[in-house]
């Protein structure tokens, strides 16, 4: 990364911005007015002329796109339109198109509002349709009060009244008209009978007829809405390419015209500072000189690694590129820091495979990653699916090694330690080798953590200077010594399978044998080395144990997934399907179908769990146990000025 300072007179502002935008390699460092030394008198620039009209046009394009339901991200890039043709089409077609789309949209909205209103009327009128009265007879009396509403049961009134009751509608319906002077009595009676009044609609004529009229109106309006929608879809099909191209062209223009807001300017000149990949400096300088006819000053400024926020662009082989997403989720590496992406891209799938080592689940996830890749678009999604693809391939490989297929054994013995549990009495081979597997996972932990500490030393040299760097390096060596010292001491006291047995050495002092004594020296030396950097770090010493033991999850989570798969198989096949197949009965068919449902649902559930467990736990082992040993992160994304043009060209 190189830091460039570009200065020119203000009349070169537009060609410079245009060239920077076109080249798409210059990461602008925003100028902030804070009266820094050397920047007195500089102010933030003003947008280029015409910025507000272009912004308005962008708004118009976006509102049209949203009215038509166009999502530019989901549109496949087709043939590119040239900016010239596009601009002339914007001048000639824009207003008409806007008017058409706007008109159609307003028409549709208006009809939709009316439909809603009419549907409300219909629901209000519905109860009255059961009463044989015209709607005008419900109101307009001087000396009569009318009540209408729902009531749990019929009631009798002691005062003179006219009443209609029906139980043919849900909640029953009661209409009663009484002289106004008896109003209070009737209200009291109705209240006791749990009467719920409904508002009397302002309508005339029979309720049934009105309902029929409104219904026909709603049908008619809905048909009109359908046809308007169809016309909008026609418009969408016809103009999507044009609108996304306009969006791109105008967005580019807005970004260009607002670029001076990120520059430092004086009355007559401007200064742009930013970052370019070192190999592109010469090319960019040449093209800028050409664009301005040489009236420009370009200087490569020396980088101050401690103060400058240097943007970071990943430089990884294609294989590791999807993993950059996992790195960004944690934090992008700093500029001078070691980039562990490649390491993660190799180790993450291995951990995933160790946990979910099953040919069947691996195949399901592999198919899923390809299937979703067809459906979903977008850079981050693609990276995620590529990571899933790598992980599921690793899962298949480990499935072959473990000899597992959705919980069943494949027709060969496991090449590595067996995870076949004894569930339902169908154990094959020599049963699960849990202890051995657990110790292997601890070994993986020991090596991974040691690797982390070694990287910690490398990183310290890269990030810090002088005595601080040395101290951090020694502290990291101290952590390694402490861990291995503890390990040697354990080995010299207890014989553990798959680990060196050091119990045979002669005892030298305090009941410790030679190996244990050496281990103790390592531990003490290590603790001193840790303490010299920062004594507070000493409280972290127990994490040596907990972080290494945490790798046991590679086996524990994996075994739980195997157990679920085997239990599902046992319930579905062993308990439900097999007994029915032996004695075939009509009722047995139902049980067999139930067994199939259990089988499918169970394995679906376990696939989801396996994906979550395998993914999250592998990720966590990296984030918590591995990265905390050496990784700082906090790098800023390299975001060059300009855009990848998908729909337009010059």
């Amino acid at each position, binding site marked *: 990364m190189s830091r460039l300072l570009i200065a020119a007179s203000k009349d070169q502002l537009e060609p410079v911005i245009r060239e920077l935008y076109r080249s798409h390699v210059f990461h602008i460092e925003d100028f902030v007015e804070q009266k820094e030394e050397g920047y007195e008198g500089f102010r933030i620039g003003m947008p280029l002329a015409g910025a507000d009209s272009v912004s308005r046009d962008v708004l118009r394009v976006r509102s049209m796109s949203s009215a038509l339901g166009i999502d530019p991200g989901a549109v496949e890039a087709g043939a590119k339109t040239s900016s010239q043709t596009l601009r002339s089409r914007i001048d000639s077609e824009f207003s008409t198109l806007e008017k058409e789309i706007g008109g159609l949209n307003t028409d549709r909205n208006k009809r939709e509002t009316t439909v809603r209103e009419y549907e409300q009327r219909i629901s209000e009128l519905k109860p009255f349709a059961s009463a044989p009265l015209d709607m005008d007879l419900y109101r307009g009396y001087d000396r009569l009060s009318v009540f209408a509403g729902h009531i749990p049961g019929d009631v009798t009134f002691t005062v003179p009244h006219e009443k209609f009751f029906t139980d043919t509608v849900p909640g029953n319906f009661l209409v009663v008209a009484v002289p106004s002077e008896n109003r209070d009595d009737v209200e009291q009676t109705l209240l006791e009978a749990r009467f719920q009044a409904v508002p009397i609609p302002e309508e005339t004529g029979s309720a049934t007829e009105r309902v029929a009229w409104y219904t026909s109106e709603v049908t008619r309006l809905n048909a009109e809405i359908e046809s308007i929608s169809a016309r909008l879809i026609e418009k969408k099909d016809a103009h999507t390419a044009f609108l996304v191209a306009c969006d791109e062209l105008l967005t580019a223009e807005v970004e260009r015209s607002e670029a001076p807001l990120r520059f430092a300017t004086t009355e007559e000149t401007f200064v742009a500072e930013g970052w370019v990949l070192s190999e592109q400096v010469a090319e960019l300088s040449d093209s800028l000189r050409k664009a301005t006819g040489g009236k420009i000053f370009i200087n490569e400024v020396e980088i101050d690694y401690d103060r400058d926020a240097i943007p970071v662009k990943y430089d990884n082989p294609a294989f590791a590129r999807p993993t950059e997403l996992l790195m960004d989720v944690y934090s992008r590496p700093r500029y001078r820091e070691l980039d562990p992406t490649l390491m993660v891209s190799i180790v993450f799938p291995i951990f995933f495979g160790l946990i979910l080592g099953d040919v069947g689940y691996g195949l399901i996830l592999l198919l899923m990653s390809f299937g979703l890749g067809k459906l979903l678009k977008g850079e981050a999604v693609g990276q995620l699916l590529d990571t899933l693809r790598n992980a599921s391939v690793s899962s298949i490989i480990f499935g072959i090694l473990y000899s597992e297929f959705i919980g069943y054994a494949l027709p060969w013995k496991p090449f590595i330690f067996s995870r076949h549990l004894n569930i339902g009495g169908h154990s094959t081979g020599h049963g699960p080798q849990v202890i051995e597997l*657990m110790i292997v996972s601890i070994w993986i932990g020991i090596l991974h953590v040691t690797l982390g500490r070694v990287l910690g030393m490398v990183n310290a040299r890269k990030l810090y200077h002088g005595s601080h760097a040395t101290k951090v390096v020694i502290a990291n060596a101290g952590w390694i010594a402490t861990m291995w010292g503890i390990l040697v001491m354990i080995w010299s006291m207890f014989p553990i399978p798959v680990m060196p047995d050091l119990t045979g050495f002669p005892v030298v002092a305090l009941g410790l044998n030679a190996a244990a004594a050496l281990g103790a020296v390592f531990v003490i030396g290590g603790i001193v080395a840790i303490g010299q950097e920062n004594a507070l770090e000493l409280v972290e010493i127990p994490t040596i144990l907990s972080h290494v033991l945490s790798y*046991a999850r590679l086996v524990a989570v994996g075994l739980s997934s195997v157990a679920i798969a085997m239990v599902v198989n046992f319930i579905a096949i062993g308990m439900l399907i097999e007994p029915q197949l032996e004695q075939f009965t009509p009722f047995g068919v139902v049980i067999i179908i139930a067994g199939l449902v259990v089988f499918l649902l169970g394995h679906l559930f376990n696939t989801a769990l396996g994906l979550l467990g395998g993914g999250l736990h592998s990720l*966590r082992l990296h984030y918590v146990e591995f990265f905390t040993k050496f990784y700082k992160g906090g790098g800023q994304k390299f975001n060059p000025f300009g855009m990848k043009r998908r729909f337009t060209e010059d």
Partner: protein
Amino acid sequence: MAVETMTVEVATASAMGLKALGAGLAVGLTGIATAIAEMTIGPAAVGATAENKDMFGMALLFTVIPETIVIFGLVVALLLLF
């Protein structure tokens, strides 16, 4: 109530039963412990992520830290059973 004779089979079976009980307790209790620990981290993590999407990685990290407790429980259970 008849006094049951303590045969070898009965003794092994009851030892196995107690092991299974212990394993169940190890997973269950550590699961509850993890849940209690994550109970306060979870909402804070969700809140932080809602405020600032860049926090997602860190939030996930903090949320899964107590998972170690239940993993230890699972390890103990597996060691007991096999």
